[in-house]
């Protein structure tokens, strides 16, 4: 049985520990007594994945019938799949979505289904390119369906978006018309983190701005403690999405949910040391690390980016579950926790996070400063259950160079958000009240979202809100190694080294502060007691 995650206490025997910092990493000595949270070892993958998928489709959970019984000639079938934002890094091919799609399509073909469309559930994310889609769904699916029956969702195609109803909290539920009118939606999901999957798949993945604005807002985010803890009452965003999902069900939208979970094999074997605990590094691992670090530090930025872009995760599937949404998701979360949950005793004054090169919104792109904020104070900060790793009013120290750099194709509205909005204020509530609607309805951003590969105009706002809880909770945020101008624009402070950052943190938490380093990736959730 793989070892569970654990909390190390740094002593004089502890070697320098690896800290991610964008497109690179450093070996960092931590003060004695620092707690370091390590994820559990990787679980073994399912040996016969095809058999597991078949078993899941034929033995569904909850009140759902087996998939073959739900398919018949003359029906309208829509298959929705998660987009490129998961898993991270993109997994080696064949992608698990391809494996599942092939099984589902095979069953549909045998049942005589003609009206079948596959929609990539991008919501307001950027459209995936044809090459990215081919890589994700495989050659056979791509050749059979692209581009007419295999496409990205267009949430701004108002003629093809339907308002299904309103929840008892007044939340408008809007999804793609085709999906709403289908006899069956089969949703193929990858559940990389606890906020993925469940009702979020359809109610968010196939939704547009009219629906998303009800939960992707500052108030909801401030009441999601944490959004990585989907238990009722812990995450306002999850509760809102659940209400929307239940409303879809009550309005006759029939969903057959297929959810998968991955193990923790995040990095390929040539970077295997990134998956291991430092004191267990062999001489080869140490040499690889030192060599790769030197090569990476010396490489021109373009080469470095290309190197990281090409990393493919050798994830193995640890669970495939299918059937009724809530029943499936409950099992999925159990599976996910088996891989990711680490028990931690109590909070600390200072939490340290190394921000890696990739987040959900910069695959094949640049992690711009807004995404750095989102990944650090949004995703990594929220990787907890019960209470944050850092106490209220404590200090978050993040490692990242925060370059003033944007991908003009993927993130055009981010550039304006950074230059215009953040130059005026960094207060999420003020930003929401003053700027959100203008960006969300800007015709140029909508045009780029629909025809190019741009994130929607409102997306940088969501990224900013995503970190609102972390920002609100921490007394100070310090970026180690961050570019001064971009860190200042984000409204944070910077330091040249961890030592300096800890010295600066004394202003907020005093001397003798307790420190916790969240050693991720691989992804984990700290269950802070």
């Amino acid at each position, binding site marked *: 049985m793989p070892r569970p995650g*654990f*909390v*190390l*206490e*740094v*002593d*004089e*025997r*502890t*070697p*320098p520990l690896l800290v991610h910092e964008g497109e690179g990493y450093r*070996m960092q*000595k931590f*003060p*004695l*007594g620092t707690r370091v949270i390590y994820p559990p070892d990787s679980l073994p993958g399912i040996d016969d994945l095809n058999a597991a998928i078949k078993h899941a489709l034929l033995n569904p959970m909850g009140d759902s019938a087996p998939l073959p019984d739900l398919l018949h000639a003359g029906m309208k079938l829509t298959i929705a799949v998660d987009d490129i934002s998961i898993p991270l890094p993109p997994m080696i091919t064949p992608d698990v979505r391809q494996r599942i799609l092939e099984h589902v399509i095979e069953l549909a073909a045998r049942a005589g289904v003609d009206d079948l469309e596959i929609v990539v559930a991008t919501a307001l994310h950027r459209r995936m390119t044809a090459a990215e889609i081919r890589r994700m769904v495989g050659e056979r699916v791509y050749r059979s369906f692209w581009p007419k029956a295999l496409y990205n969702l267009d949430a701004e195609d108002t003629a093809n978006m339907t308002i299904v109803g309103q929840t008892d909290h007044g939340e408008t539920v809007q999804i793609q018309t085709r999906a709403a009118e289908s006899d069956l939606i089969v949703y193929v999901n990858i559940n990389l983190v606890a906020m993925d999957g469940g009702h979020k798949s359809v109610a968010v993945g196939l939704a547009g701005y009219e629906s998303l604005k009800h939960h992707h807002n500052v108030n909801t985010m401030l009441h999601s403690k944490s959004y990585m803890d989907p238990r009722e009452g812990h995450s306002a965003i999850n509760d809102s999405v659940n209400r929307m999902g239940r409303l879809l069900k009550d309005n006759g939208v029939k969903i057959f949910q297929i959810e998968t979970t991955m193990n923790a094999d995040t990095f390929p074997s040539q970077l295997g040391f990134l998956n291991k*605990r430092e*004191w267990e*590094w062999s001489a080869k691992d*140490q040499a690889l690390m*030192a060599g790769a*670090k*030197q090569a990476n530090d010396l490489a021109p930025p373009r080469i470095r980016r290309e190197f990281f872009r090409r990393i493919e995760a050798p994830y193995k599937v640890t669970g495939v579950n299918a059937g009724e949404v809530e029943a499936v998701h409950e099992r999925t979360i159990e599976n996910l926790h088996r891989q990711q949950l680490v028990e931690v005793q109590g909070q600390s004054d200072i939490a340290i996070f190394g921000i890696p090169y990739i987040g959900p919104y910069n695959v094949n792109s640049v992690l711009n400063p807004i995404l750095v904020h989102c990944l650090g104070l949004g995703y990594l900060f929220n990787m907890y259950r019960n209470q944050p790793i850092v106490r209220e009013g404590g200090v978050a120290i993040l490692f990242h160079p925060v370059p003033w750099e944007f991908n003009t194709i993927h993130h055009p509205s981010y550039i304006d958000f950074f230059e215009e909005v953040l130059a005026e204020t960094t207060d999420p509530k003020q930003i929401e009240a003053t700027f959100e609607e203008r960006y969300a309805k800007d015709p140029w951003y909508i045009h780029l979202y629909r025809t190019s590969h741009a994130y929607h105009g409102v997306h940088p706002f969501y990224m900013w809100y995503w970190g609102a809880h972390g920002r609100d909770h921490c007394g100070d945020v310090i970026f180690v190694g961050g570019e001064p101008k971009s860190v200042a624009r984000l409204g944070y402070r910077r330091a040249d080294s961890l030592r300096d950052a800890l010295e600066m943190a004394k202003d907020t938490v005093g*001397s*003798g*502060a*307790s420190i916790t380093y969240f050693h991720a990736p691989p992804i984990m959730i700290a269950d802070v007691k």
Partner: protein
Amino acid sequence: MSTRDELRELARGFRWGRRPLVPRSAEPYTEPHEDIGFPTDWARSKAGVAARRVILRGGMLPIVSTELSLRVYGTDHLEDVPGPVIFYSNHSSHLDATLIMCTLPERWQKKTGVGAARDYFFDVWWRQAFTALVYGGFPIDRGRGGQTAISKARELVDEGWSIVVFPEGTRSPDGHMQRFRHGASRLALELGVGLVPVAIIGAYQAMPKGRWWPRRGRPVVTMRYGEVLYPEGGETHQHLSTRMQQAVMQLFDEDRTDWFQALTRAERGETPSLAGPAGAGWRRTWEGSRPVPRRGRPQTWK
């Protein structure tokens, strides 16, 4: 940081060329066993205390006084202190425990035991018996979390015994003070007892690691007892360890200068470090073994 510096850091951190070590908290869990080792309670019985007094006053102290030029300061700090306490000092010689036990005022000496490394002092019967009898010793597991040792220490403190510990864990290889481990501070926090700093100056020069008898020529050894430190409310063990280390450094400074200068320098945060010089290993040993100068009038008869 240059490539060379990075590699040097790695070599040091990963102990290239030496046996790799696993951080203590990452060591595999082993079932706790009931082995309490060599019994030592007899050495703290009335007879044991009396025997120890005879050995220390009648045997050890005369030897120490003959072989060393021993100076003791600061025992007056202990006069009004209610026991029990934890005595702790820098550790550079096998003389240290003997010096503390010999120089403690009688009230303290008869109710004080020394925490001694189980792997060294409790390996063969005769050494176990000697350690228990002469030092009132009880075994400490170095680097294993030491639950047995902590519970033993707790038991002793509950019975009103003071204990002597060396937070560096092992003797200094070069005479300079090493980083303090957190066992003593954790214990003090848990038990709420005071910590008495003791600076032992010159013991390394007199009898460094590897020697079994002091050097010839009555080398100067100075003992300085400091004021008792109490854990503060909400204080972390890391912070308390730092304060403990500071207190010993201040006593060293007091020895070099005077009480007032040491005090003012401590207030300004300018107490000289005892970490020793950076650079090649021989420099540290060279500086650490520099003889302690004799002060006062020169001897008439040499």
